[in-house]
């Protein structure tokens, strides 16, 4: 319980920090009850001999639980038909959720039912009928809840947790416990009243809680959480120090200033934002409004207001960028970047370098006369569309010249020289698909990174370190098939990854093979 959910720094996946904080706080709340912690991992109610399904032979007997056989033919639970292992008091057997959970789910749906029927129905049909409808619907919901409870089960097999659910659309999800980011014990109001708890498992990727187990008895939830964390290899002993601080175990003392890398001058920032299409459109907008007023001679308030609103909307982005990136400072502190910026609210962010998934270099059209570029980075662990979109640590350099950009890229991705990336253009026949931008397109592999360039007007270079590669895809559309071209995607855990567009087919396969091989080598090494 009191063990920190934070894995050691060497195996901390990106995104672990934040999520672990969540797990930490909630677990702290749950571990305020030491009595419950002592409960052994034996289920509160051993499942009765359930389901008249012919039980598949348990392929991993309890004895060899820590390491299941590497190659289980027709595993402990066949996914279709026979999902159930033989019931036994062993904790690795398949277990049901708490029998009260359908009641809780039913109670939740009762509220929804009443809200759905609404007052107008009540006034139309009278109280008696209303009550009858509520009861019928609630009964239906409860029956569904019972059925779903009956068919939901979880099971710890070796070092993975399996969750089975569904009667018609059956789904069984296998979660390797190494992938576990945090386990939270959550207690909504109804669960608190009944002494139950919900167990939420956080896994990197989905961006949401992937596997809620609702509901378990509090002791069971605590025991399961402890067991999962132990199996996951996180520290499970009592670490009181780690609990007080929301810092992952092994983090060094906070607030070291670090070695300053670069500071963006506010003058450059202002000029750079004036060199945006929005700022260029401003005079035209003003002129348009003025000529309209002068020619019409009528000062309609609505026209003025709507024009101003439209212009404000257009100008919002550059203004916000100026405000956000004012006094932008970048520092390097050991293996993390410290970023400090902002005029109205000063924001300071820390990005561990091993969490950087991609670096994106952008040369906007109007900045080229100055030779300026912008650097952004993608960090894993921030689900797209998260509420604090503006707090995402994605700025690396709001504006800077080529040498500065090269210096920072070399700092973030050691051994990567921005100026001398070996980018090769796609074959000449790709001009049928990209008539203007064929010369700009390019893709190349170095020892550390995969780099892709694109964009005719706003030129972009995306750099993906091999060690951050999640998967490689080769996609060929109908037109590309006619031309013998294909696009190679390199997917990363945050952002869009990189796509080498319209490569020659043979070249695309070679790229994919090399990317796979490099990624594998990088994973082995790292």
């Amino acid at each position, binding site marked *: 319980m009191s063990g920190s959910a934070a894995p050691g720094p060497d195996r901390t996946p990106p995104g672990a920090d934040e999520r672990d904080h969540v797990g930490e706080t909630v677990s702290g709340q749950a571990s305020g009850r030491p009595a419950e912690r002592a409960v052994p991992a034996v289920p509160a109610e051993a499942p009765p001999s359930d389901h008249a399904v012919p039980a598949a032979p348990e392929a991993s007997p309890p004895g060899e639980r820590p390491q299941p056989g590497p*190659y289980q033919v027709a595993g402990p639970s066949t996914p279709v038909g026979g999902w159930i292992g033989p019931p036994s008091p062993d904790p690795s057997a398949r277990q049901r959720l708490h029998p009260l959970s359908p009641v809780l789910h039913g109670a939740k749906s009762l509220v929804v039912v009443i809200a759905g029927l609404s007052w107008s129905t009540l006034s139309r049909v009278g109280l008696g009928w209303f009550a009858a409808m509520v009861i019928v619907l609630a009964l239906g919901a409860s029956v569904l809840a019972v059925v779903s409870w009956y068919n939901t089960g979880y099971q710890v097999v070796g070092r993975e947790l399996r969750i089975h659910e569904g009667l018609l659309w059956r789904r069984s999800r*296998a979660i390797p416990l190494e992938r576990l980011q945090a386990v939270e014990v959550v207690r909504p109001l109804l669960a608190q009243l009944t002494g139950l708890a919900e167990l939420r498992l956080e896994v990197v*990727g989905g961006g949401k809680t992937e596997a809620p187990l609702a509901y378990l008895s509090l002791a069971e939830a605590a025991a399961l959480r402890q067991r999962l964390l132990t199996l996951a290899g996180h520290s499970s002993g009592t670490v009181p120090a780690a609990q007080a601080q929301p810092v992952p175990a092994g983090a060094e003392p906070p607030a070291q200033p670090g070695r300053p890398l670069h500071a963006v001058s506010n003058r450059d920032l202002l000029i750079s934002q004036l060199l945006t299409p929005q700022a260029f459109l401003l005079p035209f907008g003003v002129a348009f409004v003025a000529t309209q007023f002068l020619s019409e001679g009528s000062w309609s308030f609505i026209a003025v207001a709507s024009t101003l609103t439209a212009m404000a909307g257009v100008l919002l982005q550059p203004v916000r960028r100026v405000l956000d990136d004012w006094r932008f400072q970048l520092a390097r502190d050991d293996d993390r970047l410290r970023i400090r910026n902002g005029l109205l609210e000063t924001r300071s962010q820390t990005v561990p370098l091993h969490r950087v998934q991609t670096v994106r270099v952008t040369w906007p059209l109007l900045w080229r006369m100055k030779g300026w570029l912008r650097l952004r980075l993608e960090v894993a662990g921030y689900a797209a569309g998260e509420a604090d979109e503006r707090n995402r640590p994605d700025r690396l350099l709001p504006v800077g010249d080529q040498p500065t950009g090269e210096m920072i890229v070399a700092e973030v991705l050691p051994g990567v020289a921005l100026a001398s990336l070996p980018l090769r253009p796609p074959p000449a026949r790709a001009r049928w698909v990209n008539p203007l931008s064929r010369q700009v397109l390019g893709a190349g592999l170095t020892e550390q990174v995969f780099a892709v360039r694109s964009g005719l007007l706003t030129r972009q270079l995306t750099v993906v370190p091999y060690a951050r590669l999640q998967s490689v895809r080769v996609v060929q559309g109908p037109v590309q098939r006619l031309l013998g071209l294909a696009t190679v995607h390199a997917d990363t855990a945050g952002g869009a990854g990189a796509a080498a567009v319209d490569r020659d087919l043979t070249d695309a396969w070679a790229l994919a093979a090399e990317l796979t091989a490099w990624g594998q080598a990088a994973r082995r090494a790292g």
Partner: protein
Amino acid sequence: MSDDAPEVPPSAAPASPLEPWPDTVRWRSISTDLIWVELLRLAAGVAVVAAVLGVGWALTGSWPFGLALGAVVLFALWRVVTIVRAVRAWGYAEREDDLLVRHGLLVRRLSIVPYSRMQFVDVSAGPLERAFDLATVQLHTAAAASDARVPGLRPAEASRLRDRLTTLGEDRAEGL
């Protein structure tokens, strides 16, 4: 760069866009029973639309309904052909370190997903799939774009694949 790559890809040009590296990869195809599942799904959808159009035609007697009905039938016929071909084209291969999944006819896709990048594995089966004794295995990585879904597997094969994926994922597990 390729001269010091850890694993030099086979130099032979791939024979077909769907079959890269034919000498190193042994593709497995999925069960052709999936054709029936997909055809039944199509039939259900088409039946509803056709019934609506047919009733409309019978009641009003206006010709656009008949035209639409014909278009629906043509579309259904075309889909039958593509379904049969698409299911035949779907394939997967387990290599030492990664899972390869290829699918698609109009847009052809090949995904290469390393086992060590696996976050979790889903095995699912809808009622129609279960009627034909099939299941779907889906591999999830931390990247939302990763696309490794293998439908139309026999339950035994599905659980074998699931177990193999999780075991390999654990063996080769690292963070991100």
